[in-house]
């Protein structure tokens, strides 16, 4: 009777030992998994996007020659538009819209083709003469009356939200206006 009791006692302590061992192993495992999960792997592409990609896109776009607006670069076209925004800018080639609409249509297509269609990136692109105000009408020029002289391009028709839903990598590029003011171009690449 006593022996059976002792044997049961021995079995009980064995089970407690195993349970303690398992608890220790599970705790160690949880600690290890926790470290591995919260350890952020280096992501050069994200760093590249944040540091250079958005800037390079604007830089290259501005130096691109238009196909049918007197061969002007997009920098010239935007400068022309900003200085004559009340009239919609100067005339482009015959049968083509004026510089403001020309820039809007073509920049929209370039960015859509490269960023959205080829890279699957959501983005938000805007141009303004006021560095602190990039808001406004999202589908076309914000203000053609010339009062605030801010205008906006939007990357989207319907499918992309006007602003990045989560975090974004933003770069602002500055070019001088003909009148001596600055024009600010901002590209937010959603990540």
């Amino acid at each position, binding site marked *: 009777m006593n022996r059976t009791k002792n044997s049961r006692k021995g079995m009980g302590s064995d089970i407690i030992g195993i349970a303690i061992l398992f608890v220790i192993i599970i705790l160690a495992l949880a600690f290890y998994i926790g470290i591995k999960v919260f350890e952020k792997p280096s992501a050069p592409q994200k760093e*590249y996007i944040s540091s250079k990609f958005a800037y*390079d896109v604007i830089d290259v776009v501005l130096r691109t020659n238009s196909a049918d607006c007197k*061969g002007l670069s997009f920098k010239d076209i935007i400068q022309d538009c900003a200085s004559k925004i009340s009239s919609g800018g100067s005339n482009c080639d015959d049968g083509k819209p004026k510089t403001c609409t020309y820039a809007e249509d073509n920049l929209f297509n370039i960015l859509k*083709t490269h960023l959205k269609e080829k890279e699957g990136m959501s983005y938000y692109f805007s141009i303004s003469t006021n560095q602190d105000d990039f808001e406004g009408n999202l589908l076309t020029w914000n203000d053609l009356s010339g009062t605030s002289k801010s205008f906006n391009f939007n990357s989207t028709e319907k499918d992309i939200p006007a602003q990045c839903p989560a975090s974004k990598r933003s770069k602002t590029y500055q070019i001088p206006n003909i009148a001596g003011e600055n024009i600010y171009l901002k590209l937010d690449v959603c990540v």
Partner: protein
Amino acid sequence: MNKKKNIDKKAQLETMEQIIVIMIVIIGGLIVFGIFFKINAGSAKVEKLAKLEQSAVEIAQLVSGMPELACTRNNVVTANCVNLIKAEKLKTSDIITNNIQYYHTIFGFSKITLQQVYPSPLPPPPPPPELVIYDNKPEKPENTKFTHRISTPILIYDPSVATSSCFELGKGTCNYGYLSIEMYT
């Protein structure tokens, strides 16, 4: 006799108990080892991918600075620009094939493609024209796959179009495109 039977039974029970404990410990150990192994294999894969990404970014930054492709005027290199005539020459000539060892040390196993976005040729054509500048696959192509791709915007300078002027580069036209770097593994 009965006592001996009881002792035998008890010894049997104790042995069984020990076997069960050992089995549980072994199974637990195997599970733990499996989880550790899986996590380590996963993080090794992540590290390998990160290295590939890093290489792709470095290659993208190197390409437009190469004398074989760079846009220059008075020996000054223009940033983020590729000379289309040089790129076409590099593609059609055997320069890369004849010096594959040299280019391999720079670009490794990768595919570098130049793609024009604007202006798109008429009539609207998907896909837009692309120029494969470099394509070096590992020896066993059946096991080869792309694991990472990055793209960087690039100005495609075409000096053969003399009707317009492309900034500091002079006569010619500058088109919008991108360089696509795909890493083989």
